Structure formats: C-alpha cells, structure tokens
C-alpha cells in the first residue's frame, strides 16, 4: 500500500463520523457510560484493596483498660504488656488523646464537651504483635494482665474486608468483561450502519482493485476516533467525579481513599487506550463479514 493515500483514508474515516453523527454521538454516549461503570468498578476494587491493606497490614490490637485505671497505672500496664513474648511494641493511648483523635476525625462539636471530666473513653494501649498466628494465645495473656478490660479485634474486620475485597474484585472483573463486550457490540453496530450506507462506494472500491486494508482503514479510523473521544470524555468526567464521590462515601463510612493523583494518570491512559482498542476491535468485527462479499451481493441486489 502506498502511504500517499493514507491522509485521504483518515479524512474519509472522520467524514464517516460526521455523516453518521447521530449514531456516532449515541455510541460515544454508550461507550462513556460503559467506561465510567468499568472505571467505577475498578476504582472501587482499588479502594477496597487499599483499605484492606491498611487495616490488615497493621498487626495492631487496641487494648482497653478499665475505667478506674489512672494514667500512671496505665503506663505500668503498658510496660507489663511489652514483656509478653509475641508483643513487639506497645503504645500508651491516654483517654484525652483518644477523644481528640475522634474530634479531629469527625470534627463534631459534641466531642469538645466530652473532653476532660466528661470523657467516656478509657485509657488504652496499642499492642503490636509479631506473629498473628499466635493471636489467640497472646490475647489470652494480654487479658490476664490486671487492669485490662477488653480488646478491639481488628483481625475480624480484616478478615471481613478481605472477603469483601475478593468479592468486589471478582465482581469488577465480570463487570469490566461484560461492559467491554457491550462496548464492542455497540461500536460494531455503528460501523456496520456506516458500512451499509457506504456499501455502494465499497463495491466500486473493490471493483477497481482496492485492497481489504484500504477499504477497512476509514472504518477503523471511525471506530478508533469514537473510542478516543469516549476515553477522553470519560477521563475528564472521572477527574471531576472521583473526589466528589469519594468524599460522599467517606461521610458514610470512614476510610482513607486512594487520592486521584495516585490513580489519575493510569485511569486516563487505560480509558483512552481501552476506548481506542475497543473502537478498533468493534470496527474490525463488523468489516470482516462485509469484505468477503462481492459485487451485487455486497450491494444486496
């Protein structure tokens, strides 16, 4: 193929989009929805994974002390806990710090009133374990220490989050797969409509000896352009939507989400790449069948 005619073919592809604009806009719309849902599913998965890692990654168990335990006694208990064989680190969390922590997180005026004498929180100690498989033994040793009231078992949360993470990952995978198929189907239908409206020109191209590649290029350009536009629009939408959605989600459940700056570049690359690839695939799927036809058969005469 001579590349001198290449510019012409690209121009033809862009022309296709314009002459078939209603269908092009519709497929861009559907493709954006698909990409957005795909993106939401993947980003949810990323966030849940990160949440699981942040919870499960710390082998820290918070040990609550009895209400009557004074700060000084608490320091002794902290030191005592440090002597347990599987414990690598102990950090004393005074009740005043704990209430401030809550106030910082929720920024609610009610916590201000609860400071000082009215503080309902007990003193606590964060205990870091070396080996989580010895969790039960270590916990019973911790509970045996005088002044220890209860513990907060993060291991159970971690386990729940891990199974939630697996569920979300599996679900996202299927959602991504299904929506990719839908997108390819939509694009291939759009391209098929363009091909149908240009079948006469295709038959003439073939009769004068145009190669399959040459006939195909404008339609692939059309599909890829639709995909490219959808990818760009989706990335822009996501840029604005991500923080809003995550902050709303944060108001419902407290968790630290993965900031956009950390995922933004990747999602943009993936969206645009996926858009272009889906566009190309969609058009190739619909063209193959057409190219095998000849003459009047192509024209449906």
């Amino acid at each position, binding site marked *: *193929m*001579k*590349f*001198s*005619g*290449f510019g*012409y073919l690209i121009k033809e592809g862009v022309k296709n989009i314009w002459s078939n604009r209603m269908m092009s806009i519709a497929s861009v719309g559907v493709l954006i929805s698909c990409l957005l849902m795909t993106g939401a599913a993947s980003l949810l998965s990323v966030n849940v994974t990160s949440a699981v890692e942040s919870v499960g990654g710390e082998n820290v168990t918070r040990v609550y002390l009895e209400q009557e335990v004074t700060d000084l006694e608490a320091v002794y208990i902290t030191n005592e806990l440090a002597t347990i064989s599987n414990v690598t680190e102990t950090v004393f969390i005074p009740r005043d710090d704990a209430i401030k922590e809550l106030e910082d997180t929720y920024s609610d005026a009610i916590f201000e009133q609860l400071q000082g004498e009215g503080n309902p929180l007990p003193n606590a100690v964060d205990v870091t374990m070396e080996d989580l498989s010895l969790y039960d033994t270590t916990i019973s040793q911790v509970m045996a220490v005088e002044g220890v009231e209860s513990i907060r078992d993060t291991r159970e949360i971690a386990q729940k989050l891990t199974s939630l993470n697996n569920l979300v990952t599996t679900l996202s995978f299927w959602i991504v797969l299904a929506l990719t198929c839908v997108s390819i189907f939509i694009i291939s239908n759009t391209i098929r409509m363009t091909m149908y409206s240009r079948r*006469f*020109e295709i*038959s*003439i*191209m*073939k*009769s*004068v*000896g*145009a*190669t*399959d590649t*040459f006939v195909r290029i404008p339609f692939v350009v059309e599909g890829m352009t639709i995909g490219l536009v959808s990818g760009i629009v989706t990335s822009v939408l996501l840029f604005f939507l991500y923080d809003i959605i995550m902050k709303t989600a944060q108001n419902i459940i407290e968790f630290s989400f993965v900031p956009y700056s950390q995922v933004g570049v990747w999602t943009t690359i993936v969206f645009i790449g996926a858009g272009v690839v889906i566009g190309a695939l969609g058009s190739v799927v619909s063209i193959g069948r057409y190219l095998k036809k*000849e*003459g009047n058969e192509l024209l449906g005469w």
Partner: protein
Amino acid sequence: MIEFRNVSKVYSTGTHALNKASLTIEKGEFVFIVGSSGAGKSTFLKLIMREEIPTSGTIIVNGMQLDKMKRRQVPMLRRTMGIVFQDFRLIDKMTVYDNVAFAMRAIGASPKAIKKRVPYILELVGLEGKSHNYPSELSGGEQQRVGLARALVNNPKMIIADEPTGNIDPEMSFEIMELLSEINKRGTTILIVTHEHELVENFGRRVITIDKGVVVDDTMSVSASES
C-alpha cells in the same frame, strides 16, 4: 489476455451456469460476448473479475491463474481491468472529477498523480467541461462516459463493459462504442457483453455467443467480413 479451459460453474442452487467452456481472447482484441439472458454471460464476467470461482477448469487472465488465486491477490488482478456497468454506478454525491479520482484514490494513488491523470482522462472521453457537474446533471450517455473514464483512469490492460449501452439512447450508444473503438486502437483489450444485435452487427468485430453455459459460436460478425 483471457483464457478459459474447460471451465464449468455450478452454483450452490444447482444451476449449471457454464459447462466446459473454452475460449481465448488475445491482448488488444475487441470482442463482443452475446447470448440471451440466463445464458451464462454474467457468470462469465464474474469469473473473469474473480467474483466467482470456477467449479472446475482453468482460467488465466492477464497472466494470473484465477482458479488458484488467493483472496488477497484479487485486488492486483482487478487493477489490470476497468469495469463499465450498465447502470453506470456513479456516486451521486461526488462530482464527475471526484468519481473518476475515487478509482485512483481507492488504490492509493498520490494526490499529485490524481491531479495530473484525471483531467487527461476526462478530456479523452470528451467531458473536460463537465468535471464539476454531478452525475444527476448529465445525460445517460455522459454518465456512461464518466463510467468509462473511471474504468480507464488506472490504465488497465483491458476494459470489461457489461451492457454499456443498455441504459442510453441509440445515438449516444454509438458514441460510446466509437469511444471504446478509439481506446482499443491504443492497445487496450475490450470485452463487451451485450444482447443488442444491431450494435454488434454494425461494428464488425469478433463475436462469442454463449448459450446454456456453452460457447456455441465464435466468429467475426458480418460487416467485419464484408470489410
């Protein structure tokens, strides 16, 4: 050059379109293919253009063996021939110039080559003043000249015309035939499928008659033998 050796074509519907047909058309010839409808003329053309593959037999066109040809080689075969259709098959929304240029663009010709070649061909068929007109603004004879210009523009070794005068009035038909004769004088093989006996007789050229899928007659027409 076209060579058919014992070519048969049976369609999946069971129709025997060609039955052990053999014939040879040399380079530079001017040949009419005649026969009633359903005789096998269309199949004959489709086989030459390789829109169909023979059930048995050998076909050689412009040095290429068609029955053993791979699909991706077909475009190269078609570049050696120019096709003229009975219904002109011009693209309505393109000007005369663009219709002709389209055939060059389709095979990847450079814009420079197109700019040089298209006006030359339009002049050859006598349409130099109509290059910016649309097909709907032309008479039937003029439209067929555009079709002929498009068939010629890629400089093919032969022109295949399927009932080229079927949709135009007799006077115009004569002009088209004259034009084809002129092109033939420059060395291009001309193959015309028609059922207009009058036209064939007036021109005095080789006539191949096909009936029921068999070549029943292959002679020079009367006026040719007279001259």
